[in-house]
């Protein structure tokens, strides 16, 4: 199982580095539109032209039919790639024949480049929202576990109600209840707030369970008898016991939030067009014709899959997950251990 873990971590590290280095790695700017290359297919780098080996070049796309958006490779002329120039790792030497590894979208923009810039938005959003959910969930769970009695009961019933509700609909209603047209930075913050509000109960339940059982153990009682106050007991002694659980929850929440962003943006309640996010890019694949004729518009879906797979590989190989009972498939919004619908045995 160690191998799957290594593969998972590698995937995430590569995607993370890609997002950080987006301005260098992306051959074209995220908003550069090539008017003659709407829905152009991917341009693959070649090495052999007319029998002699070169340093890497591409063939330009020639528009055959504007109506059908059909393109043909212009094999007569090789457009060489230039490395390490203009602050880019690699780009085409001709501005009218850009290097587009994953083709172009409906506006003639480079999908590969936008995918890298979109990773910043999508991953940044998911990670920020996860931190928020972990923070709120840990605090509420710890308070419920330490305080017990009525506060515990109230907080946990609330958490259970939130877990039962279908997450997508809660997110939709919360988002739709806010102004529909907003600036991207505000949308970002709103989505962080909404996702954190939906994600905390999963964290809180687990933390509460661990805290409630740990506080009866000898070390916690010893700390109390030595005069440790409640805050010290909580932060110094009980919360460190939850670290493993919280780490697992983080690996479950991030992919779930990436999918949530994609869902919201896909239906038009998240980021809208000029902003590159995986969800807003996926809108190009919103009709059957585009999906069938220009499958490269599905590239953001591939990116979401790869990242989710990375997290799932890590979760699956995590030691002691089954014992901790916290295993929950990412992006399915389901916690097998939450038994609130079960009659109290």
């Amino acid at each position, binding site marked *: 199982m160690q191998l*799957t873990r290594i593969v998972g971590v590698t995937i995430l590290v590569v995607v993370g580095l890609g997002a950080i280095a987006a301005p260098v790695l992306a051959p074209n700017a995220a908003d550069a539109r090539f008017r003659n290359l709407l829905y152009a297919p991917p341009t693959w780098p070649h090495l052999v032209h007319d029998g002699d080996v070169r340093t890497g070049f591409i063939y330009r796309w020639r528009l055959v039919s504007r109506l059908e958006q059909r393109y043909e490779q212009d094999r007569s002329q090789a457009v060489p790639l230039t490395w390490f120039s203009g602050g880019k790792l690699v780009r085409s030497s001709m501005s009218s024949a850009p290097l587009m590894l994953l083709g172009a979208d409906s506006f003639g923009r480079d999908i590969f480049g936008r995918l890298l810039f979109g990773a910043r938005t999508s991953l940044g959003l998911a990670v920020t929202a996860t931190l928020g959910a972990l923070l709120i969930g840990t605090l509420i769970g710890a308070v419920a576990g330490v305080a017990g009695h009525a506060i515990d009961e109230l907080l946990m019933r609330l958490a259970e*109600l939130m*877990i*039962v*509700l*279908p*997450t*997508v*609909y809660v997110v*939709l*209603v*919360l988002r*739709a*209840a*806010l*102004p*529909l047209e907003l600036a991207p930075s505000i949308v970002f913050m709103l989505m962080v707030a909404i996702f954190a509000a939906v994600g905390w109960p999963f964290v809180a339940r687990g933390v509460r369970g661990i805290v409630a059982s740990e506080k009866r153990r000898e070390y916690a009682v010893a700390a109390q008898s030595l005069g440790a106050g409640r805050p010290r007991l909580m932060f110094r002694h009980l919360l460190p016991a939850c670290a493993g659980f919280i780490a697992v929850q983080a690996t479950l929440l991030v*992919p779930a939030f990436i*999918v949530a962003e*994609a*869902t919201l943006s*896909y*239906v038009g309640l998240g980021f809208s067009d000029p902003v590159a996010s995986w969800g807003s890019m*996926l809108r190009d*694949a*919103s009709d*059957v014709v585009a*999906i*069938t004729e220009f*499958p490269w518009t*599905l590239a953001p*879906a591939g990116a*979401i*899959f790869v990242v*989710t*797979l990375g997290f*799932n*590989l890590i979760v*699956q190989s995590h030691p002691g997950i*089954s014992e901790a009972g916290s*295993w929950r*498939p*990412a*992006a*399915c*919004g*389901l*916690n*097998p251990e*939450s*038994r609130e*619908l*079960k*009659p*109290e*045995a």
Partner: protein
Amino acid sequence: MARYLVRRLTFAVLLVFCVSSLALLLVGLAPGDYASELFGGIGANPALVAATRASDGLDRPLGQQYAVWLGRAARLDFGNSLLYRRPVTELIRQRAMNTALLAIGALLVATVLGLPLGVLTGSRRNGGTALVRMTSILLLSVPPLLMSLLLVFLASRTGWLPVGGMTSAATESGFGLGTSGFSGWTMWARDVAWHLPVPVLALALPISAMLERLLAQSIEDTIGAPFILCAEARGLSRRRLLWRHALRVALHPILSIYGLIIGTLLSGSFMVEIITAWPGLGRLTYDALRGRDVYLVAGCAAAGALFLAIGSLIADAVQVAVDPRLRESA
């Protein structure tokens, strides 16, 4: 048992009440209303907007609107949809049936695929089970949003299956023209069955992978238990040991999540319905939210909550039927 039933029914009624009320109030409090969305914000004729508002009673204070709605909802009258100008109950009944068809189909497929495979992968290790395990992890990483896009792509590329909607236009019109009686109905049913695989698989595959993984883990844990060793010592066949003794115990934690799967099915079906144009509750809720159709939103929320409540009741009943210990305490 009676007390338990009363408690569950109270919970169900409370859930429906809370969820629909919250949805209505949230949308009511949201900036903009049905009238402003209908005529588009800027440049709309203020007199026209105000007139629409007045004729639909949207100019009254939210508290009063809510009170009127609540009074009617108590008599199971959820009002008229502002967008469609038809009774909310009538609109929702149709769509809820479609979503139920999709959800029940997906649940069946997920169960039939996931549980037997889970028993296999949990009980033995060879090339085949490693393959199933890996496929499951791959499928778990393809949430319904991506799975429906992928299946729509495959279906339209191969042309094997229709890619959208619930019926073909031809059948729809044929049916509307009154192809009478039984043959019309069977034609319709066959057409729906033809349109079902894409959305049902998009919804079912990730869940079947989840069930497979959970049951495999549960079986692995159970096989180590002393009572299995004891049964083995008594000379039971491996098959009987696994499918009879281990499975019954291992299935227990899985059954407890079936009530929660309803929520997952509803969540997942939203994207599946949008992408495959399946006329279900998801699309209706989305349209109602976008159009600020408060009554329709509240109705959809109530329908969703009802689904959840019924689902959890059934899941509970199954669990009680399987586990005698629960029967004692209830």
